[in-house]
């Protein structure tokens, strides 16, 4: 029987998600932005966010197809002041 929830690590912290959640769903949860299936904000703005799962970049175009597995380690990054 499939567990209804999975636990993933997002930016070093545990986070519960419904089983079958995609990267797209996670990014929408985090940013509050509504995204199209191609991973861009529905309002046409630039999101400025990138995602890596297990140390590999997941391109935004692949977010909607990438289903997170239990225990996945996810990094979500954006621009910050520096340099």
């Amino acid at each position, binding site marked *: 029987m499939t567990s209804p929830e999975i636990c993933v690590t997002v930016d070093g912290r545990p986070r519960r998600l419904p089983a079958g959640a995609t990267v797209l769903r996670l990014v929408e949860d985090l940013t509050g932005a509504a995204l199209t299936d191609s991973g861009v904000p529905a309002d046409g703005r630039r999101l400025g966010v990138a995602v890596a799962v297990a140390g590999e970049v997941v391109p935004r175009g692949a977010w909607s197809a990438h289903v997170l597995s239990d225990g996945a380690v996810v990094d979500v990054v954006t621009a910050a002041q*520096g*340099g």
Partner: protein
Amino acid sequence: MNDSILSLPDTAERLVIDGVALDSRLIMGTGGATSLASLEAALVASGTELTTVALRRYSAHGSGIFELLTRLGIRALPNTAGCYTARDAVLTARLAREALETNWIKLEVIADEDTLLPDPLELFSAAETLVADGFTVFAYTNDDPALARRLEDAGVAVVMPAGSPIGTGLGILNPHNIETIAARTSVPVILDAGVGTASHAALAMELGCDAVLLASAVTRAHRPALMAAAMADAVRAGRAARLAGRIPERSLALASSPGEGLIEALEAPGGATSVDTLLGVHGEGLR
């Protein structure tokens, strides 16, 4: 400033990187600013068209820096600041490309936190990987002409030697090496790190650098926007001086006034000059 002089064809020549022409040769960093408002004022005063940002974990509060640069029409140059290994730097670069939709990356691979100087081996390894992966690499490097040459051969788009360690404000500790790198490198050379005040930025340009990148000197100045304006002037002045062709250094003085037609004072009786006589130096009243 005389705009007609500074718009001569060579002084007005724009810096071209990867086919992108930049009018301003001052590249700004965004680290160290106390607020977004003061950063915005400084960026505007600097006239910069290219500004570095770091890449960090997403925060719901957001830093607002990406939005600020977008609003000001300033191109973002993501960096790999904080990376100590080629592996981390490559991942950070790939995330930056995805997040900011640019192939440009300022590659920083740091050796240790006391000096923040580049680790040459990790830097070179990361540069090779990123060039092969299609990035336009701005390589933050030591002031080492040999390493600069190796990086250029590896295909980086820009060589960025440090004047002195990041944040020290010590200026250019080895001007000879910086001049050598600028002279021997065919891709643009941007002086990066260590600038403390305007004269350092001017010197970098006088030594032949194509541009200057600085952050702390402005963001941590008492009046950031004023320092940013000073840096913009210094970069322009240094470049103009470089193009103007400075005089050679000499060990002894060389008079700038002509030696002919000099007025010589007449020798007065008793050895006093006529000027002394006129001034009454030998007069009774003064002795």
